[in-house]
């Protein structure tokens, strides 16, 4: 108890030094918590963007197709028949579903040409799953059978295309022969998802099926649930049921997306930054303990003369450093809380950063990012600061406590 009292008093012996070291720790915590909140906020937004504009909550596809889906193959497709449509409505928490065909496409205006991804969609059903309707900035979504396309605003800007312009869409059929679709730009869409805005051309499903010669087949179905949190459970539950009908089919949750692993990788980056910053803080703690030990050499000698054991002297220094960790932890968490509060309230608008397109960095979002509260980050960082400070001080404290009492008393 007395050692705790002594350590607290020693903390205030060099207020400026204590406060600077605590400030370094506080800054590290503040930085981590803010960055963590930003990443979580960005993750939430990324996932919501993908769910709302590309993916839905779950997708159903042939498992062989799914393995190669990024190559946009026209093999291992699935039938869009009554049986599967009925089956999908039996999913727990079901809200809506829609068939889709993703395929390779080259968009040409007669002069310029660019590769894009074609999406054959059933308009009414798709609008129940994906939120396109609110983001049609010009024209309208097409009807089934219309040879009309909806393209993203950014793609339209790049290709200098306007509403009612005609474009030629070059693709390969299922049998690998070339075919084209001449379509009128019937609508221009501008969603918060840059992938949709820049890389995708939406076309009526029946027109696409006819062009690709795939009969009534689709690459996959997208399904919207009432609650997205059920998605992983539904994958488990519905997979068996679905495979009873066709054992090649599988259900995939939005959590299986590549983007999820990208954001996890970003979290590792965050931890690396944390490691660097806290290493600096640990060096600060080691430095402060060595300085204190050198300054208090006579006191250490006196304590040893009074019969204090080495471990008690170590404890007094460790308690002092732990106190700095607690101070830094508290200040850091307060600063972090203020930062997250404002960040979650006002967000960070990427539009403010001219010409920064997050899709360039593999982050499919262009809207404001809001901070997300993560209580775990606060608890972990506080504990990290306290225990980190404690551990960082043990070796220098041991060095001080092992000093020969005679040498310490007479500063030899």
């Amino acid at each position: 108890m007395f050692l705790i009292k002594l350590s607290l008093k020693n903390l205030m012996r060099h207020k400026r030094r204590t406060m600077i070291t605590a400030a370094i720790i506080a800054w590290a915590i503040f930085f981590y918590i803010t960055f963590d909140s930003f990443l979580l906020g960005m993750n939430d937004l990324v996932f919501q963007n993908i769910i709302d504009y590309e993916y839905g909550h779950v997708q159903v596809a042939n498992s062989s197709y799914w393995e190669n889906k990024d190559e946009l193959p026209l093999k291992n497709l699935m039938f869009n028949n009554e049986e599967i449509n009925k089956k999908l409505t039996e999913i727990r928490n079901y809200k809506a579903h829609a068939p889709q065909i993703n395929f390779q496409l080259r968009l040409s205006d007669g002069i310029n040409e660019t590769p894009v991804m074609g999406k054959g969609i059933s308009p009414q059903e798709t609008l129940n799953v994906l939120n396109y309707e609110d983001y049609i900035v010009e024209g309208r979504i097409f009807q089934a059978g219309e040879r009309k396309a909806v393209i993203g605003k950014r793609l339209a800007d790049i290709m200098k295309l306007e509403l009612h312009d005609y474009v030629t869409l070059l693709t390969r059929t299922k049998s690998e022969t070339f075919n084209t679709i001449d379509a009128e730009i019937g609508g221009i869409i501008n969603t918060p998802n840059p992938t949709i805005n820049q890389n995708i051309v939406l076309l009526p499903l029946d027109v696409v099926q006819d062009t690709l010669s795939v009969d009534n087949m689709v690459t996959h179905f997208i399904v919207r649930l009432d609650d997205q949190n059920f998605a992983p459970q539904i994958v488990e539950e519905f997979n068996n049921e679905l495979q009873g009908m066709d054992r090649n089919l599988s259900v995939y949750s939005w959590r299986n997306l590549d983007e999820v692993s990208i954001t996890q990788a970003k979290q590792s980056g965050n931890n690396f930054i944390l490691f660097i910053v806290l290493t600096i803080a640990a060096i600060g703690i080691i430095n402060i303990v060595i300085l204190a030990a050198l300054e208090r050499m006579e006191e250490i000698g006196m304590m040893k003369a009074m019969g204090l054991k080495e471990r008690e002297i170590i404890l007094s220094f460790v308690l002092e450093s732990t106190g700095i960790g607690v101070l830094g932890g508290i200040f850091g968490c307060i600063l972090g809380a203020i930062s997250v509060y404002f960040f979650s309230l006002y967000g960070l608008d990427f539009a403010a950063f001219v010409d920064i397109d997050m899709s360039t960095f593999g982050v499919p979002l262009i809207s404001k990012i809001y901070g997300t509260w993560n209580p775990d980050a606060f608890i972990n960082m506080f504990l990290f600061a306290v225990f980190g400070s404690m551990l960082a001080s043990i070796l220098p404290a041991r060095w001080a406590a092992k000093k020969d009492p005679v040498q310490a008393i007479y500063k030899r």
Partner: protein
Amino acid sequence: MSLLVLKNVKKIYHQGVINVPALKGVELIVEKGEFTTVFGPSGSGKTTLLNVIGCLDKPTEGEIYFTGDNIADLDKRYLAEIRRKNIGFVFQSYNLIPVLTAYENVEFAIKILKNISSREIKKRVFKMLELVGLQGLENRKPNELSGGQKQRVAIARSLVKKPKLVLADEPTANLDSKTGEDVLKIMLEMNEELKTTFLFSTHDPLVMDYAQRKIELKDGQITRDERREELDVFN
């Protein structure tokens, strides 16, 4: 049984390849309740002798019996235990903890002993501060005390745990002669009142006059050991 018995105690410091003998076979017996000074010129081995007796340093050779037990070869953990319970120290430069008050500095010495109630601690600390004439100054920090007052705090700190032996290394060296005399009188009073054994080093002839027993050390050897029965320093 004598409190302290030294038999052929030698201490040699190794400075590189050179061996420097600080004590050359010291033979000494100190009885309980003695008020003894060790004097001699600088480098005569006074501080080394006190360090060896106070379990701060180990002799190179010889035997040291403290309350009958040979402590010369004990492990440093046991030596720390002996210091904690039985030996008080007063240093030339006071060595008070600057962030603690006079009360807390004295309290520190007794707090590290186990099994003493808070009430008893408080009682003993106040009593000791009163005995050394520091009543009313309990809450002052060392930087708010004069040199003499600081040394009184150090004396109170050394005595509060009721040690068998108090070792004082040149306790008046940093004090003016008047204050030095006051400090010595207090030490003598404590010796009279508490029957604590005092062993202190000095090279100041005035200070030596306060001792009942004077031991002269020259080149690491005892060259004179005088006793006197009556002291009239209070008159």
